[in-house]
């Protein structure tokens, strides 16, 4: 029996002998490196210290309680939810349209559409921030939650398109042909056949876009005006030492939320594939 056969019988992915690099250890060290700062901040959010200093002198949950007495903070968090909801909905809708058009049709401008939908990923955010800031100024559009949501819909679009595109490529077009042979119009086929099949990916795309928007600060700082989202508010408050502990507590709380959503999006996707 050759080495290859022996190894593949053992279920090895590569086949034969490996290098002696302890990759598992490397991975473990990287995970520690990635988690440690977050863990330190998490612990610190329960500390009685009022400045960013060590050692921790005592433990308290006061900062978490103080969140609910800070009206500005709660408004900013609500604004973030609204902006994220709008941006994710628009980006997912447009991403769906782009991916169906690109995967199922051949037309002039097909390549350009795909390139444009992906382009926001490769333009520095400050460039887009400045561009939208000037556009809304020229058009006399007052800056608000809606201008932030518009900006976020553009930067979230590549994510939605990527997720839906990869799912749609794997869907057999014969299913759609069958529906149309049985007398369904094309829009009806999309609504009754394609959308249900895409369902989990749509939800996953929406959640991903929501998280992209919810966490985004570079663009939002330029487009916020009076309606601050939570990251914009946090960014502004980071210079003031006295509100810092409450801010960190709130950020930890929201982080738990986005982490949960990301995991939900991940499970939905892996289940549907």
């Amino acid at each position, binding site marked *: 029996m050759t080495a290859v056969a022996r190894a593949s019988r053992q279920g090895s992915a590569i*086949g034969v002998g490996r290098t002696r690099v302890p990759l598992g250890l490397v991975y473990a060290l990287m995970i520690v490196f*990635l988690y440690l700062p977050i863990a330190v901040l998490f612990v610190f959010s329960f500390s009685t210290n009022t400045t960013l200093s060590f050692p921790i002198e005592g433990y308290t949950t006061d900062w978490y309680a103080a969140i609910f007495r800070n009206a500005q903070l709660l408004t900013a968090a609500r604004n973030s939810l609204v902006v994220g909801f709008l941006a994710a909905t628009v980006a997912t809708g447009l991403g769906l349209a782009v991916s169906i058009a690109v995967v199922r049709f051949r037309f002039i401008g097909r390549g350009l559409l795909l390139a444009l939908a992906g382009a926001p990923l490769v333009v520095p955010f*400050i*460039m*887009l921030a400045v561009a939208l800031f000037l556009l809304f100024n*020229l058009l006399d559009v007052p800056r608000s939650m809606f201008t932030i949501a518009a900006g976020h819909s553009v930067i979230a679009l590549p994510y939605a398109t990527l997720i839906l595109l990869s799912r749609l490529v794997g869907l057999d077009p014969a299913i759609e042909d069958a529906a149309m042979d049985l007398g369904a119009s094309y829009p009806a086929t999309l609504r009754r056949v394609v959308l249900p099949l895409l369902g989990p990916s749509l939800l996953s795309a929406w959640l991903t876009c929501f998280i992209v928007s919810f966490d985004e600060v570079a663009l939002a700082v330029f487009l916020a005006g009076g309606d601050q989202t939570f990251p914009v508010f946090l960014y502004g408050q980071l210079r003031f030492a006295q509100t810092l502990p409450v801010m960190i507590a709130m950020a930890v709380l929201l982080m738990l939320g986005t*982490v949960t959503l990301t995991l939900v999006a991940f499970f939905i996707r892996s289940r549907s594939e």
Partner: protein
Amino acid sequence: MLGRRGSLWFLAVPPYLWLLLLFVVPLGVVAAISLLPGSGRINFGAGWPSLNHYREVLDTPAYLRRLGISVGMAFVIAAAATVLAYPIAYFLAFRARQRATVFLILLLVPFASSYLLRVMAWKLLLGREGAVNWVLTSLGLIQEPAGLLVYSQAAVVITLIYVWIPFAALPIYAALQRVDPSHLEAAADLGAGPWTRFARITIPMSLPGALATFFMVFIPTVGEYVTPSLVGGTGGLMYGNLIQDFFTRAGNWPLGSAMAVLMLLAVLVLVVVALRLVDLRRVAA
């Protein structure tokens, strides 16, 4: 009844219009505003379009130096994040086997954590009274807290590498998953050892993915301004901070626009040149 072909209009036109209005036109607006001769806000009455703001930027060594420094920092950050993410992705793709999902989820948590929170965490670690200094002094390794670790260029670079690693690991993982195991087995049959297989098959086959990852980190990082303003102090400020300043405190929008356009051009030129170089190497191979 709407046919298939007719439906295409309803699919393609809305995203086209949306991207035209909120992506293409705004970029054009920046270019247009950068040609306004006046300084301050938008003033169309100040005279004919002119390149005077571009001349001002190109004649100010401090601006160009800051652009050069930012490109250099972005290069280091993107290269480090890609190289550090590669073994993680490799482990997930080839070694983790049936537990790959668990290990992937472990990676998703820092990926999904708030960006500002992660930056704050490094401020907490590197500060004068931060965790690193505290640990070092309590272990007796140093007597006094080592000078400011935070508020420096190094702090910006470390923080951004940290922020990007989980993001960089995912596309490299996807690229490594597409490496066909039968190629590796064939090479093994022909007598190639593990390092040879890695260098001659795995690396070349995952190179496009790794390069794409590099640029997905490099491009946004060139225009970064949030992290430098939080942990960079004055020495760690980047070109993006200059641009932001012209749109806020300094209030010179045309000059800020010219700086933004020059940054985008610099990035595009670098990307095109880099892609050329890589293609040439592939032709040579």
